């Protein structure tokens, strides 16, 4: 009975198809959780919407682009100050959101004029910025505003600006995943090939599916630089709009997050013949492997080995210090999807940590194939987990630390379980060699937080602690 019906799900028995407990001798031919399927209303799912998958995850990262959200104010307000992706130009994308602030009259009479005015205002107010992405939202999609027509008009009147449109209302699809897809496919079809890059190296890549969370991109950029590889485009960490129009000129697409950005890598392969190389950027073993593969592609293996040796020299000792102390710790991962399969084996191999439960908000079955292939037996694999399920799973596996978002982190705090921000990190970056030491350090500090011991002490009953303190 490897698919699991939890006690809290007895009234929604279809949840059994989404929760898998891996046992010895089984693989994904036998069982694969249903995923990327509609959420049951009222379950307190963790999922967001398709709009945020496009704006907050991918488009909004660009450092030189106005994000014009055509809809009521909430969609802009809510996708602001929820991410940690700095940029080297003073964090432009973290500071601003733009909205057409749609009101009832625009719902009744159409919002296209409002959009046109808002676009022009935004360019007028920020005259140095020449690039924009316009997003539809639930109501503007429902009333059928033609945002493409509006942006064409503005571009004809303002020849120095370029605007991309994303028609992906929040109700599209079943999660943020739909928004990733719409943005990827729209971009390849409408914008890639629009600009020719200046080629400065004989080795060129697109680095796809990394959003510079706490500086991840910058860690990896050091490696590309050391290897003499030119990154034509970053999709989209610390990236620019025009760099992404040059994606067709890279020799290789190196993909980290295959969930949010695999589509564009696939299309680059189909349309431009650029091969796609999927890598894991979290973990020593994985990062070294990734560097080796990229270097083997270009025939610069020696440079790769020199870089790996140097990085191991700098960081491996520090990692091992934590590994010794984290050995056997139990970890749960409740994030979007790909981090489940990126992390489960790397924390095991590099840190001796056992991942005992994983939940994915928006992963597809492909993600579950990956994570079940990599993950351990005795571990729970959950699609679209909800709050009551989390409580029950915690009771079953009692993790020492949970990698998840801040809100769930606040919840599990009451259960005396520390959390690490699995989306935006505690004190990152977490990618690369240096980053994985940061991850190990944060995990070590979380698990050994002295407050957890104090919290577990009932001063009315348990006197052990005080005797210890007094002695």
């Amino acid at each position: 009975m490897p698919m699991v019906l939890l006690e809290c799900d007895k009234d929604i028995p279809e949840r059994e198809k989404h929760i898998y407990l891996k046992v010895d001798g089984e693989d994904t031919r036998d069982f694969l959780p249903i995923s990327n399927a509609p959420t049951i209303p009222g379950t307190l799912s963790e999922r967001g919407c398709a709009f945020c998958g496009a704006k907050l995850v991918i488009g909004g990262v660009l450092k030189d682009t106005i994000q014009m959200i055509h809809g009521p104010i909430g969609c802009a307000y809510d996708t602001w100050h929820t991410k940690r992706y700095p940029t080297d130009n003073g964090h432009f994308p973290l500071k601003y959101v733009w909205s057409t602030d749609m009101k009832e009259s625009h719902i009744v009479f159409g919002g296209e004029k409002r959009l046109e005015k808002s676009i022009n205002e935004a360019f007028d107010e920020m005259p140095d910025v020449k690039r924009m992405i316009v997003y539809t939202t639930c109501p503007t999609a429902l009333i059928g505003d033609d945002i493409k027509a509006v942006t064409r008009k503005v571009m004809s009147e303002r020849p120095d600006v370029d605007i991309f449109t994303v028609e992906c209302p929040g109700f599209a699809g079943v999660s943020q995943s739909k928004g990733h897809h719409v943005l990827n496919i729209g971009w390849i079809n409408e914008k890639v090939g629009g600009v020719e890059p200046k080629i400065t190296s004989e080795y060129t890549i697109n680095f796809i599916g990394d959003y510079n969370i706490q500086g991840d991109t910058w860690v990896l950029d050091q490696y590309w630089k050391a290897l003499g590889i030119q990154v034509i485009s970053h999709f989209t960490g610390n990236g620019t709009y025009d760099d992404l129009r040059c994606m067709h000129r890279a020799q290789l697409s190196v993909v980290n997050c295959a969930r949010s950005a695999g589509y564009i890598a696939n299309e680059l392969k189909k349309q431009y013949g650029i091969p796609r190389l999927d890598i894991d950027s979290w973990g020593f073993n994985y990062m070294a492997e990734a560097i080796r593969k990229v270097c083997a592609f270009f025939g610069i293996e020696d440079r790769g080995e020199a870089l790996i040796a140097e990085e191991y020299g700098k960081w491996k000792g520090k990692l091992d210090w934590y590994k010794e102390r984290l050995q056997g710790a139990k970890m749960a991962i409740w994030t979007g999807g790909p981090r489940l399969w990126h992390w489960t084996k790397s924390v095991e191999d590099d840190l001796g940590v056992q991942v005992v439960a994983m939940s994915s908000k928006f992963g597809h079955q492909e993600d579950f194939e990956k994570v079940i292939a990599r993950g351990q037996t005795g571990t729970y694999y959950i699609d679209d987990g909800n709050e009551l399920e989390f409580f029950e799973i915690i009771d079953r596996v009692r993790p020492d630390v949970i990698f998840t978002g801040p809100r769930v982190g606040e919840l599990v705090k009451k259960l005396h379980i520390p959390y690490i921000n699995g989306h935006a990190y505690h004190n990152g970056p977490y990618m690369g060699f240096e980053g994985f030491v940061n991850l190990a350090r944060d995990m070590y500090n979380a698990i050994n937080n002295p407050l957890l011991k104090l919290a577990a002490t009932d001063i009315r009953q348990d006197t052990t602690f005080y005797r210890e303190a007094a002695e």
Partner: protein
Amino acid sequence: MGCEIITKKRQGIINPMYDCQPAGAQYAGIGVRDCIPLVHGGQGCSMFVRLLFAQHFKENFDIASTSLHEDSAVFGGHERIFEGVLTLARRYPHLRVIPLITTCSTEVIGDDIEGNITRCNEALAKEFPRRTIHVVPVHTPSFKSSQVGGYAVCMESIVKTIAREKVQPTGKLNLFPGWVNPGDVTLLKHYLSEMGIDGTVLMDTEDFDSPMLPDQSIHTHGRTTVEDIQGTAGALASVALARYEGAGAAEYLQEAFGVPAHVVATPYGIGNTDALLRKLSEITGKPIPASLVKERGVALDALQDLAHMFFADKRVAIFGHPDLVIGLAAFCLEVELKPALLLLGDDNSKYKRDPRIQALKAKADWDMEVVCNADLWELEKRATDPDYKIDMILGHSKGRYVAIDNNIPMVRVGFPTFDRAGVYRHPTMGYRGAMLLGEAIANAMFAHMEYNKDREWLLNTW
């Protein structure tokens, strides 16, 4: 010299001050005990609001979604409502209230909320004959008003739905504080207690600041019960502290059950707090006790050290909820700060005519602007203008970069204040709130003097 009241000229918004209506409705909803709001819309409409509350309070709150997908956009979301309500009722056996909060999408689709609730109620009665679950219709299309209005709409609808009939006089006072922090609720309950008044706070959010306990139990929820809300219909009177956040519910209780409604100036600053206590005394006949005279004196004593030495003539920009901004402007005047720029962030046309704004305008003998329907770009443009001097910013965390980039000291106040620790725990209302705010302003100025080497030596002997 003088006060100008203007409206933002741009149509679009760059950096909003408020979230949309459903966000405010969700905040009112979580103040009720044994209650999980159900947001009828896309999943982002609740997921991000939950995150926002978690950022501000460093707590988790339960809010559900009907998870509107494409098929519902075409065929209507009736089944999603029905399934959502029933799923919540089945999986949460203690649940007693479900505010059903609409959003832009479901209002555009035109789902019949009242009809669906009737259908849910029939099913709930059949399946759970011993439970009464109040499903509250909350119409909050995001394209109207803002989180401020959404809070008011939900508050009013919860009271209307649950306080359906006249009850025996309770002798209690209904207190509608508006959208405030747990620290404010604690302070207001302390005032009621000091005056010997039995009160019902709507909503009692004191436990939004909740502990880590040895038994791992979780107590992060509203404290206002169904019985409390039913009892409001038999109250002695209602006092609403925020004109735009809950006064409508007090007015409803007056119309429906003859419970006298008093809308008072939001008690920010000494004078506004005085007025509140006098009003409470007048309604209940209970005297203001010496203990509160002392608290008032302690606050005055603290502020007196700051006002004419450090605060006088400093130009302050204030943004946030209208009742907060207007109240803080009054507080500023008491401590000799000059409220130079007030930003009110939605299209409510009543703000301009608010008697408190008009009173400020009448009083202003300094350069002052009130910007209605404002966004934070209005603040940023003025902060970057060398001729437009701003010495201090009072507002929530969404404006943090205006302060950071322009080297202006800022004190976090209002909602959300996620970039400072523990703000929600302390009152801003009342004497104590005025004192703490004054001290926070002073300390922000002092730190600013030190980091900028700007007469920091003044503090050598202070």
